[in-house]
């Protein structure tokens, strides 16, 4: 297959999940197109195209940055003839494909009246470009997130004046795709001339050499050593690094909350009510990275540590609960923010929301704990919980819904804990291999 086409195809099929979604999307689209032809119904194919977009194209935009980096990083690939040029053509083709459904809508006579579809294409281009650039930069080095916080603050300050908001509304529709094109031009220019493209860094890792710089003073207790191995961080990590990490998480959250409640018109703020899905979902996402890392790092720990298996298991559980605790502390801070005059929420709502989010955190922690052999359970459990949170905890939900979800989360947490304990005792450890993203010994 032609190299450009092969690159283009890889953007849609690199991850196994993508291949599954591609199958589903194609089937969905095919069924609906067939239905349209057969039943003489009109507009069914549009649904098909929408499905294709949602299942295949949009997720691919999120994955594309990682795939682009992963393909561009290896030394051997730099020697492939016309490699960089072909990659750029491939990503261009990819973007065109993402915009294609909207172009189809535009061309279709029923929906294609007026400039609306063209504007939409412009917005989709801008959003997709932003997502690609954002993830591309972030995957290169996790620390770019600082720049994004800075940009958010700048935007917040800028948006606080009515004049700026007016200006934003006055920006012509073509400026957004125009900016996107400019971004692509800059990207192309950079890509063609840069010497090395760094490989994907999926999870925050301690900065290169952190372990080498650590001075292990005196004797290291078994507890400290286990903790270091399980969390992946050098045993003595105090002071600046910890403060900095906490600060950026807290900062992001505060900015988001304040931004929402100060700028959004009243009906939309309901999305950010303390009992909406945002907080339990956000808590689960916040805890995901570290919990998964801890569990993966601990998988072969039992084989390497003398002593009882249960002892190691308890240490792992403690690490997970410490992770949960830092998440809960953050939540307390947010609850305080909600009780403050800025948001002035009803105390009972805040309490209910806190319980909801805390149980969500507990659920995700023990779900991660139970997912020792593989990620399948984790993904499915996470997905199902997410779906029910979306469904039941929309902006205008009832106390009953909140209660139901809280109870389900709690029950789930207890069930997964029992499963985790059982698996720790029974799983065939020799069949497990450490997963690459959590290997802390990988070259600095």
């Amino acid at each position, binding site marked *: *297959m*032609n*190299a450009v*086409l*092969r*690159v283009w195809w*890889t953007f849609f*099929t*690199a*991850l*196994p999940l993508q291949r599954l979604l591609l199958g589903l999307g194609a089937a969905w689209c095919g069924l609906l197109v067939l239905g349209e032809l057969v039943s003489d119904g009109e507009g069914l194919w549009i649904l098909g195209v929408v499905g294709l977009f949602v299942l295949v194209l949009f997720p691919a935009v999120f994955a594309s940055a990682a795939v682009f980096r*992963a*393909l561009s*990083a*290896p*030394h*051997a690939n*730099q*020697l*492939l*003839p*016309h*490699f960089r040029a*072909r990659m750029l053509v491939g990503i261009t083709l990819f973007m065109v494909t993402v915009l294609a459904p909207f172009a189809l809508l535009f061309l279709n006579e029923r929906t294609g009246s007026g400039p609306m579809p063209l504007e939409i294409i412009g917005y989709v281009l801008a959003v997709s470009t932003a997502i690609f650039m954002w993830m591309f930069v972030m995957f290169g080095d996790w620390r770019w997130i600082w720049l994004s916080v800075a940009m958010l603050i700048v935007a917040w300050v800028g948006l606080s004046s009515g004049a700026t908001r007016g200006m934003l509304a006055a920006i012509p529709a073509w400026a957004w795709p125009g900016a996107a094109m400019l971004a692509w031009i800059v990207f192309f220019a950079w890509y063609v001339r840069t*010497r*090395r493209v760094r*490989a994907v860094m999926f999870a925050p890792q301690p900065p290169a050499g952190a372990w080498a710089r650590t001075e292990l003073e005196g004797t290291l207790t078994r507890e400290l050593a286990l903790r270091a191995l399980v969390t992946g961080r050098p045993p003595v990590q105090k002071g600046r690094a910890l403060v900095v990490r906490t600060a950026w998480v807290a900062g992001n959250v505060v900015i988001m909350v304040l931004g929402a409640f100060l700028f959004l018109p009243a009906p939309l703020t309901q999305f950010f009510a303390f009992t909406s899905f945002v907080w339990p979902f956000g808590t689960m996402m916040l805890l995901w990275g570290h919990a998964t890392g801890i569990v993966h790092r601990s998988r072969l720990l039992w084989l390497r540590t003398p002593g009882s298996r249960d002892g190691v298991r308890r240490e792992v559980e403690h690490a997970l609960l410490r992770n949960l605790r830092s998440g809960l502390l953050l939540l307390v801070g947010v609850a305080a923010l909600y009780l403050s005059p800025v948001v002035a929420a009803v105390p009972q709502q805040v309490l209910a929301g806190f319980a909801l989010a805390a149980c969500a955190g507990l659920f995700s922690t023990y779900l991660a704990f139970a997912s020792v052999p593989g990620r399948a359970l984790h993904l499915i459990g996470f997905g199902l919980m997410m779906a029910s949170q979306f469904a039941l905890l929309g902006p205008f939900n009832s106390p009953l819904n909140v209660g139901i979800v809280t109870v389900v989360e709690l029950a789930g947490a207890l069930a997964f804990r029992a499963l985790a304990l059982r698996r720790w005792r029974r799983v065939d450890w020799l069949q497990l*291999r450490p*997963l*690459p993203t959590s290997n802390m010994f990988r*070259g600095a």
Partner: protein
Amino acid sequence: MAEPIMTARDVTKLFGSKTALDAVSADVFPGDIIGVLGKNGAGKTTLLETLLGFSTPNRGSVTVFGEDALAMSAQTKARIGFLPQLDELFAMLNGKQHLAIVSAFHSNWDRALIERLVAEWSVPLTRRIDSLSVGERQKLAVLSALGHRPDLLVLDEPVASLDPIARRQFLQQLFAIAEDEDRAVLFSSHIVSDLERAANKVWIVKNGRLYWQGYLDALKESVVRLHIRARSALPRDIAVPNALVTRVDGNTAIATVARWQPSEAAALAQRFDGSLDVESLGLEDIFLELHR
């Protein structure tokens, strides 16, 4: 003599205050199989990467197929195959996808060869790359470097994770490549026995300098260990010409010398008033002696 495929002149590379490469000059001619030998950290990987233009030298230049290594044309790149030390395979893909991507970029991909090798070497193609063992990944990476029949094959520790059977199979493939006298192979390895079988030339890298480069046979004939047995006690500071290491013990002395000429044996024996035994050294021993 044919034109060299690759030429390095005075290449120096500094990482901060550390000198990784120090005025390295070398040539690779068609038909060569060159083994690069050196301690960890001696600069082997840096050397190979600089030779292919992945790293800009602070001084000196590298020419590959007549072009500057830092600005190779697409045709020149197509004639090179590279296997880095750490495998950089995209973990989410499976072997088939990976090879499909690589082969799409090359117009002269030899499908028959790759299919044969996949079968011979038992390379699993349908499983995800991150579920393969280290050896299987290395084999896959080797295939990616071989498939387009490059004229210059540069391999950094190609067999470090392969079992002895796989290593033999790999060497056989190297010989098949070397049969074509227009192609050259440059590979670094710790496994000295493989080097002795395969290489006709050897580069020894020590502290960033190319300590020795030339034919392997010449190296073995040039570095020998002399066992001197004298009739009377030998002086402690015995001066053996071209000696790298000398050990004196009463009437006997053992000296490792470089640039040995067999004709010197008689003269030396007479000078020390005794007998002289010449012990030839295998490559591993030579390497150890050169690092004393």
